């Protein structure tokens, strides 16, 4: 059985003819069944409301939210650990939505409970809770000079607590920023490596939070996993090359959820003093970039107080991310390029609120 395969021999013409006849017979025999199956599928698709992410929206809806182009087969995506990288496409839109009722997450919803409008046009959606699915977490930590001392100790302890809160299949990356960036650990399941990297973190220099978030976004979302980008900062940007407007543009094209944990002067009140668009300075206003970028990605801004609540804030960010629903749809009736406003409504749970990104750029 371990020998070489025997050489092929030419078949006689009669044998070929009889094989072709057999093939035709099989096609004729299975045709009615195939028609019935396709018909049922189309009916299910037109009904719209379904939990089956492979029905209704076609095969391009991949498991666990990988963003793929038309033509990528489910078989190619079946093995999560061997997911290939795909170019971003808005053929499929993904939202990671958190539903809160009285401040508590609502976790028993299905696709029937949601209504999603893309530029005002209702969409056919697939919904799945993230739950224990593997996720990626990118930690972007401010290590500028103002963090040095007790705050840095609390910060590394908080990052360690976050690493402990992840499951074995989750991956985490560690990016630190001051006047420059350092990728101390790429996305990895090796938690010991991340803890070791945390132990070596020192604080000095200026703050380039905009550049750091852009780099983290560029790093994220290449394998289709749901990704949380958790950024910590204690001050305003003083050294970035990119502008806040460029970062917002990038965030609006990304599916990554950005949560922020802030202390000190970064925890300024949300924008409001100067109405948007009235000043040419507004696009360069970096003071409140964390408020804006978290809102633009459906994330949240958590208060780390003076550092004593950092650990609980970090763990809370991961915990609430896992309570999210992954909503996917293939945009229908809204093909125009540019900004697409997304509205997520709940058919039941009238008092509940949905936290999801308010739109996307294509």
């Amino acid at each position: 059985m371990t020998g070489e395969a025997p050489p092929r021999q030419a078949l006689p013409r009669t044998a070929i003819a009889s094989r072709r006849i057999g093939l035709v017979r099989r096609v004729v025999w299975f045709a009615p069944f195939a028609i019935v199956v396709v018909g049922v599928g189309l009916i299910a698709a037109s009904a719209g409301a379904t939990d089956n992410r492979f029905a209704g929206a076609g095969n391009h809806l991949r498991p666990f939210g990988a963003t793929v182009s038309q033509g990528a087969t489910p078989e190619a995506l079946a093995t999560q650990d061997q997911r290939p990288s795909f170019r971003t496409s808005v053929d499929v839109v993904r939202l990671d939505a958190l539903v809160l009722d009285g401040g508590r997450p609502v976790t028993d919803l299905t696709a029937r409970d949601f209504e999603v409008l893309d530029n005002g046009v209702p969409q056919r959606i697939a919904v799945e809770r993230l739950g224990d699915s593997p996720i990626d977490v990118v930690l972007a930590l401010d290590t500028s000079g103002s963090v040095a001392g007790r705050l840095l100790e609390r910060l590394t302890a908080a990052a360690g607590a976050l690493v402990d809160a992840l499951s074995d299949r989750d991956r985490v990356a560690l990016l630190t920023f001051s006047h420059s960036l350092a990728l101390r650990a790429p996305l990895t399941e090796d938690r010991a490596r991340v803890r070791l990297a945390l132990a070596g973190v020192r604080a000095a220099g200026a703050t380039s939070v905009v550049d750091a978030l852009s780099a983290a976004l560029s790093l994220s979302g290449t394998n289709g996993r749901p990704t949380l980008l958790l950024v910590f900062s204690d001050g305003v940007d003083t050294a970035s090359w990119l502008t806040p407007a460029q970062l917002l543009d990038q965030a609006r094209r990304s599916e990554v959820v950005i949560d922020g944990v802030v202390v000190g002067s970064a925890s300024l009140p949300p924008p409001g003093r100067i109405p948007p668009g009235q000043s040419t300075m507004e696009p360069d206003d970096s003071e409140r970039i964390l408020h804006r970028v978290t809102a633009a990605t459906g994330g949240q801004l958590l208060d780390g107080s003076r550092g004593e609540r950092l650990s609980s804030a970090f763990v809370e960010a991961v915990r609430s991310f896992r309570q999210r629903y992954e909503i996917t749809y293939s945009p229908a009736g809204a093909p125009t390029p540019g900004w697409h406003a997304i509205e997520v409504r709940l058919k039941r749970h009238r008092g509940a609120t949905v936290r999801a990104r308010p739109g996307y750029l294509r």
Partner: protein
Amino acid sequence: VVSIESPRRTQNADARHATPSVVALFALLFAPALAAAQGVTSPYLELVWRYRAGDTVGALTAAAALPTEGLRARVLRDLGPYLCEKAGGVRDCDQLRRRQLGVYRQRVAPLLKVALPAAVLLHLHASTSLDLSGARDAGRAHRNLVRVLLDRMGEIEGDLDPADVPRFHEQRRRAHLLIVWLLQSDLAVDAIDEDLPGLRRAFPDDADFLLASGWVDETRARPMFLRNRLSLSQPTATVDGGARWLDRERTFRLTRAATFYRQTLAVRPSYAEARVRLGRVLFLQNRLDAARSVLAEIDASAEPRFRYLAAMFGAAIDERAQRAPAAKRGYEAAMRLWPAGQAARIALGRLLARDGDRASAAALIAALPIEPPPLDAAADPWAWYYLGQAWRIEPSFLALRADLRK
């Protein structure tokens, strides 16, 4: 500063105050004998006779003409208050003080021409060392002390031997520049702005001080500085929340910065740093074609850091002009010019991700270093940009020290 003296010290001071009277009487009574015995020259006798005649101003003039510095200083110190008291007029007392100061300056100027630059150097060194060790407040204190010392250097320049003046003047200029750059590293815009008008007068048509002046206005046009000034200058709420004021102030600052940079280039056309900064200011004013032509004049002979920045700003101009392929090429060129430059890598990664090439974008970011590079000579020039010419501090300090040791 309040000095508290003990009663004993006060008594001692009174005793010292009494001494001049005794010395003066002794001098007046035995002046001819002293003159004969010690060979004291005629100005001393002149002093005595003037004093006897009640001509206090004449006596002071004679005292100032005494032959040796030690004698002159001692007589003025000892007899000065007594003569002043006798003169009984404020004007005479002021004259006396001025003469005393003149004597003092003439006496100490030769000493100060060495001591002051040395003290400046010492405190500059302390300031930079403390900054590096994280004790920035202490570093600032030393910087302020240097500013005082530099004022003293300016005061004694006229008392020096004319042959010493050019070198001393240049040392003072370089020390002033170092202080300006140290203040830039601290983003202490207000402090620099206090010094620069005087420096531009003391060192007219100096390209470095003109460039620093441009930096002040370029920095004041940054959003964070504008917002601070807005909260200070407009404490009450305005209809538009200060938006119009912000626009006006930003326009004013950028225009002034561009003017200073142009003046710098008029003095020193080959000043690549001024050209890069002028290009950026024009870009911020949305004058893209003008910015592009200014940056295009930075050729291969310029230092790599300025060629890198010129490539970066050129790419930013292309981005704003919606020319993404050209912008990508610009950032790639910048990466070749300064491989450790992170800004180019991040900017290119963003463009690639925007165009859907996430794998290439991620690969660019994955090549970031594991440890953050220090802010040294090899660091990304963009990391230094907001800090003006602070990147020059270390080599300039070493050069100044070497010059003083000669």
